[in-house]
């Protein structure tokens, strides 16, 4: 089994389009959530959303390249290029069949609507244009990146609802750990737009708080729902031996990956499934719960979801739960992307020596009582971190990461 390390990260998110911007927002507790009143006119209950600002797709790729890509795939490409630049991944690794690519993604709704509109306007399929088929597929991010990067190794897509990103990193880790690949470019992407989340809004799951920055309140007694968000997060994972051999800067190590399904409800998480995934990840990491110094929670700010995560944390950590950080208080729920973004954010904080606080947390309630939520930024880097992700269908995925360069 090979040790798996992180040598690069990239992020295009509602907190910023570069690592520096996102890290600054994390440190200062700046929210990426805004109100879009047009969502109400569109028929939605909530006008709140995460907003990726100042990202110009035309600055990154040509029109010809972009015509087969949804916006989140262009964002994924930008994040990947940043991650590869930080990793200084050499061409001979990138272009070999020992370097692969896996991204998490579970929808491409907006391109599907574009496709239907194009057919209606053209009146025949031959007048629709060439890009729609490639933009509509769940694997759109991976397939486009395969071509843009010249990938010759494994290339696939993971769909596991809001655990997609964590699953992508977990499977990338497995590929390196098993020796199938020496390096993996991995991450996840999430489209943003009212059409993409309209039916989700119809379930009453979104916050309608009047103040956008105060709407996402993970674990807080007054939480009332999530805020949809998105963007793209990317990492370069590599075998420890490969990274050492080429003198790469090692940002952290993925020690363990765990996954499970609740097997109960489509929408309501139970009190045991996520705990099973946490235990599996800890077991692979050969760590005890007491070795964990921080939990980077899934915590989406829904009443039932956060209560369930609290129950799962109690099941694993008992009365000795380490500090719990809930970054969706700043980002909103990045859905498919969130599990990958959590690890990127953790690396950004470790590099800069701080741990971000959870915005809008005042006191637990509704099942989250007693969870030690970190409510302010500390000038201490995260060390050994459990990153949780959970999604519809009871999908759970957990990564245990240790920051810094391993001995």
């Amino acid at each position, binding site marked *: 089994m090979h040790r798996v390390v992180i040598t690069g990260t990239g992020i295009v998110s509602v907190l910023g389009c570069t690592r520096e911007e996102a890290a600054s927002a994390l440190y200062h507790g700046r929210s990426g959530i805004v109100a879009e009143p047009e969502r109400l006119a569109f028929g939605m209950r909530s006008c709140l959303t995460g907003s990726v600002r100042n990202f110009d797709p035309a600055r990154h790729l*040509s029109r010809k390249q972009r*015509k087969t890509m949804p916006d989140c795939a262009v964002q994924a490409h930008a994040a990947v290029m940043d991650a590869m630049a930080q990793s200084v991944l050499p061409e001979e690794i990138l272009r070999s069949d020992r370097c692969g690519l896996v991204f998490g993604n579970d929808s491409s709704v907006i391109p599907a609507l574009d496709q239907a509109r194009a057919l209606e306007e053209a009146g025949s399929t031959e007048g629709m244009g*060439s890009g729609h088929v490639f933009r509509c597929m769940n694997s759109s991010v991976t397939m486009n990146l395969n071509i843009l990067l010249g990938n010759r190794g494994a290339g696939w897509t993971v769909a596991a609802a809001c655990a997609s990103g964590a699953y992508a990193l977990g499977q990338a880790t497995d590929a390196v750990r098993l020796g199938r690949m020496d390096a993996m470019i991995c991450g996840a992407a999430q489209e943003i737009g009212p059409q993409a989340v309209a039916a989700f809004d119809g379930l009453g799951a979104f916050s309608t708080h009047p103040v956008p920055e105060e709407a996402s309140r993970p674990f807080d007694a007054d939480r009332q729902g999530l805020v949809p968000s998105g963007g793209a997060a990317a990492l370069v994972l590599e075998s420890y031996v490969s990274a050492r051999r080429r003198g790469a800067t090692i940002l952290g190590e993925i020690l363990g990956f765990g996954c499970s399904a609740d097997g109960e409800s489509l929408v309501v998480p139970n009190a045991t499934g996520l705990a099973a995934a946490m235990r599996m990840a800890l077991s692979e990491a050969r760590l005890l719960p007491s070795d964990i110094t921080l939990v980077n929670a899934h915590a989406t700010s829904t009443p039932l979801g956060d209560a369930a995560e609290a129950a799962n944390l109690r099941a694993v950590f008992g009365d000795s739960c380490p500090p719990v950080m809930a970054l969706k208080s700043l980002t909103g729920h990045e859905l498919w992307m969130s599990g990958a973004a959590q690890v990127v954010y953790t690396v950004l904080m470790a590099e800069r020596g701080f741990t971000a606080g959870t915005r809008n947390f005042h006191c637990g309630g509704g099942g989250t009582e007693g969870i030690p939520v970190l409510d302010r930024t500390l000038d201490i880097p995260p060390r050994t971190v459990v990153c949780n992700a959970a999604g519809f269908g009871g999908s759970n995925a957990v990564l245990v990461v240790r920051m810094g360069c391993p001995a």
Partner: protein
Amino acid sequence: MQEKEIKDIVDAALADEFELDRASLVDDAHIREDLGLDSLDIVDLVIVIENAFNFKLEDRSKLAGIQTLGDLYRFIRDIYEHKSFVEK
């Protein structure tokens, strides 16, 4: 339609859609090899031309023989001469 007018419309449409340098748009430029258009671009080229001239071709299969920009200019000139199009 005058030949220069056809050329101007085609060049403007191609430069915009495929982000091509106007200087590369010469009569003997090969559409695939010199301008770099691939099979997907050719699908879009038809739509771009139809939108630029605000017509629909009666028979798109005739485009298959076009190799160079000069061929494309002549193809459109012939279309106008024979009125083998439907106005949009």
